[in-house]
């Protein structure tokens, strides 16, 4: 197809041409960045979490006497164990995705202290007996804690447990000792140190980092009865979990009438954590869809106008031998040229917008393939939008050429 006549005709309609190109460019820039943001958020929502999310229920207990914590904990665990359908029970101080994060920085050399810059920030999960089964942690290497390793009052108001054992996630092991097994290695934060006895599959932290890898830097510390362990976790079949939750709340409230008891399924914890992200994703999807629709309608409108304006010329071309397919191709090619100009400009704008967002909102750099993908989307939409008017143009009979304008 000869494109020179098309370019010549577009030159005569500078303003509408410019408008379409600008609209496609803007749409391309917004689309690329919006899709990039959607992608990042969806990836974060899909991060795997190696605990039994479906069967897990948690009930927290606040406002009981810290001095009685040892006997209270035993009594509460026994009450929870007697609920029908409960497979495992334990007590922990926090859970993934609860926003309740206890972080600390560790190094791998004995002189590391908490403020060293090169240290790795890690979430501390203080866990009670039976926590491996109750949470459904998947052991990959080494062992979990034995019953005698849970020490009462291991935290006792401090920041770190006064024990010396730890189980870490695979991601943390890889970060601290790349290419080596983490088993037998030691985490240091003067004057405390912890020997790695086991490695579990990756468990998310209570709060996620923008770098997805860092969201898995978790470490588990065995703790006996202690004032910080106030979140009871129960594991059962997913079908039973709502009933287990109700009965667990009742059981704990009956056993501790003055305490504040709050229960929630892990599914609800996850939904709450991701609620904002989820709604942002929907807003972005909606804006993209509506914007593409508006762009398509704009193309339909302007092309229809052109077709109407050129009815006579089309008739003449048909009369001198152009086929319907030729006319169809003319408008398709014209639209392709406009879209191409638009997406080239659009990709430059998209890149610029991304640079700005990186600076202002600490967004990551957009991978290059988003640009051609956005361009492709707009090319397709352009071709789709131009079909209707182009078909109408092709239907103009050659006889129009003989009628007065």
């Amino acid at each position, binding site marked *: 197809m000869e494109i020179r006549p098309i370019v010549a005709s577009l030159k005569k309609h500078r303003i509408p041409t410019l408008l379409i190109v600008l609209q496609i460019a*803007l749409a391309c820039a*917004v689309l690329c960045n919006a899709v990039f943001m959607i992608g990042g958020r969806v990836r974060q929502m899909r991060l795997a979490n190696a605990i039994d999310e479906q069967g897990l229920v948690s009930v927290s207990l606040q406002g009981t006497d810290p001095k009685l914590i040892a006997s209270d904990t035993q009594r509460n665990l026994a009450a929870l164990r007697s609920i029908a359908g409960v497979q495992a029970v334990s007590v922990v101080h926090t859970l993934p995705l609860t926003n309740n994060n206890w972080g600390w920085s560790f190094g791998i050399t004995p002189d590391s202290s*908490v403020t060293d810059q090169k240290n790795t920030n890690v979430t501390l999960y203080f866990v009670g007996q039976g926590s491996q089964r109750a949470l459904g942690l998947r052991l990959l290497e080494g062992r979990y804690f034995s019953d005698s390793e849970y020490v009462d009052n291991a935290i006792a108001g401090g920041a770190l447990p006064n024990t010396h054992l730890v189980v870490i996630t695979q991601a943390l092991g890889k970060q601290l000792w790349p290419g080596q097994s983490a088993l037998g290695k030691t985490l240091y934060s003067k004057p405390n140190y912890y020997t790695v006895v086991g490695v579990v599959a990756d468990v998310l932290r209570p709060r996620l980092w923008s770098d997805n890898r860092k969201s898995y830097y978790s470490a588990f510390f065995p703790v006996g009865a202690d004032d910080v362990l106030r979140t009871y976790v129960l594991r059962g079949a997913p079908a039973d979990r709502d009933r287990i939750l109700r009965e667990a709340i009742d059981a704990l409230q009956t056993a501790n009438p003055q305490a504040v008891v709050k229960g929630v399924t892990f599914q609800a914890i996850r939904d709450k954590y991701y*609620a904002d992200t989820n709604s942002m994703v929907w807003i972005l999807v909606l*804006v993209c869809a509506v914007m593409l629709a*508006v*762009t398509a309608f704009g193309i339909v*409108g*302007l092309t229809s*106008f052109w077709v109407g304006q050129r009815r006579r010329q089309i008739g003449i071309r048909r009369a001198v031998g152009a086929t319907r397919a030729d006319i169809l191709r003319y408008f398709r090619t014209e639209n392709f040229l406009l879209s191409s100009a638009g997406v080239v400009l659009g990709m430059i704008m998209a890149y610029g917008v991304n640079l700005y967002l990186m600076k202002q909102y600490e967004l990551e750099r957009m991978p290059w393939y988003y640009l051609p993908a956005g361009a492709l989307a707009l090319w397709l939409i352009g071709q789709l939008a131009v079909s209707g008017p182009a078909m109408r143009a092709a239907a103009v009979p050659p006889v129009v050429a003989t009628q007065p304008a």
Partner: protein
Amino acid sequence: MLAYYFDLAVHSLKRHRVLTALMVLAIAMGIGASMTTLTVLHVLSGDPLPQRSGSIYYPQIDPRNLVDYSPKVEPPEQLTWVDGMYLLHARRAVRQALMTGGMVPLQPAQSAIDPFQAAALYTSSDFFPMFNVPFKYGTGWGEAEDAGKVRVAVISSALNDKLFGGKNSVGQMLRLQETAFRIIGVLGDWHPNPHFYEWYMGGYDSDEDVYLPLTTARDLKMEHDGSTDCWGNSGGDPDHLETVNCTWLQFWVQLDTPASVADYKRFLEHYSQDQHRAGRFLRPPNVRLRSLMQWLDYLKMVPSDARLQVWLSLGFLAVCLINTVGLMLAKFMRRSTELSVRRALGASRRALFGQLLMESGVIGLLGGAGGLLLALLGLWLIRQQPADYADLARMDISMLLTTLLIAVLASLIAGLLPAWRACRVAPALQLKGN
């Protein structure tokens, strides 16, 4: 004259219903999306204390050691107990208050209500007068209660409704963490947004249930929530927060004149200098004294998602407007024949231009009305979301008028170019063909 133009516009718009509908819809969607996000931003970046915010300041000093020190580093966001108490008792400002948030178990006397965790603010007496906090019943406490660690409480009107059915509860007892507190005040309508004075427990819509003297709360070892940032070998042992090297308290001052602001900053510098000389502060003096609004800005209180959404929707509005310009151009140019006849019959270019612009204006008005409906729908959708600011997303009169104004302005701007092009037709030139 204008009425005639208006009639013409309506007539012309009716003739091309589909095209008109497309333009109105494009403007409505662009305006609807941008006004939704702009309203959210407007609400989120509002002034929490409209009458007072100009004279409220947030002092910062830097008591940390030399680890990670560089001259440009910002001081910590909070104060240690030692510094906070010193600044509080120094009384160099008109008013000053030291505070931190926490959750405290509340055991109601009414057996019908289960115990629950109440959101608490532990603060000092100036909090109430400094922030102009309204009282429905009773009053706040004074310095004597602060000094005596007296067990008194001020409660929110929501808690008063919940526990006492909205009746005057001053003088009643309240059990918090197994300890009896005497209620001395019930707050009126007090919902500052953003929740500027204590932001760790949630930046928006996070009113406290109870307000207790900070000294009393520490005396009873009530749990402090929020952030505790330590350095050196200090752990954040909750029982010894008075002595550890940790910042965990927020401190606000009221300074009414520029001179007193400068004085206060000098006072902070002198204090830091003294502490540095005494060897307690290892860093050279590093102080800040931001006003309330500057502080909110520094904290980046407005969620960045809200700002991103505004940018996105403005981009979307631009696409919609360019689209409308294109459609309008098509529409006006299609009427070249009609316009040139009217020119030939004596209509001036000016009159035609006015008529065409009137047509764009009507489209804008319709689009604006549609956009307003869409924005109301968008805000309703946002209110269904679980974000802590969701409930605040409401349109106010100023945003409503802004919406309509922006819609009409946008469509007039969109109409300028097409109208200008269209009325350049030569009179009667177009007549020849017919």
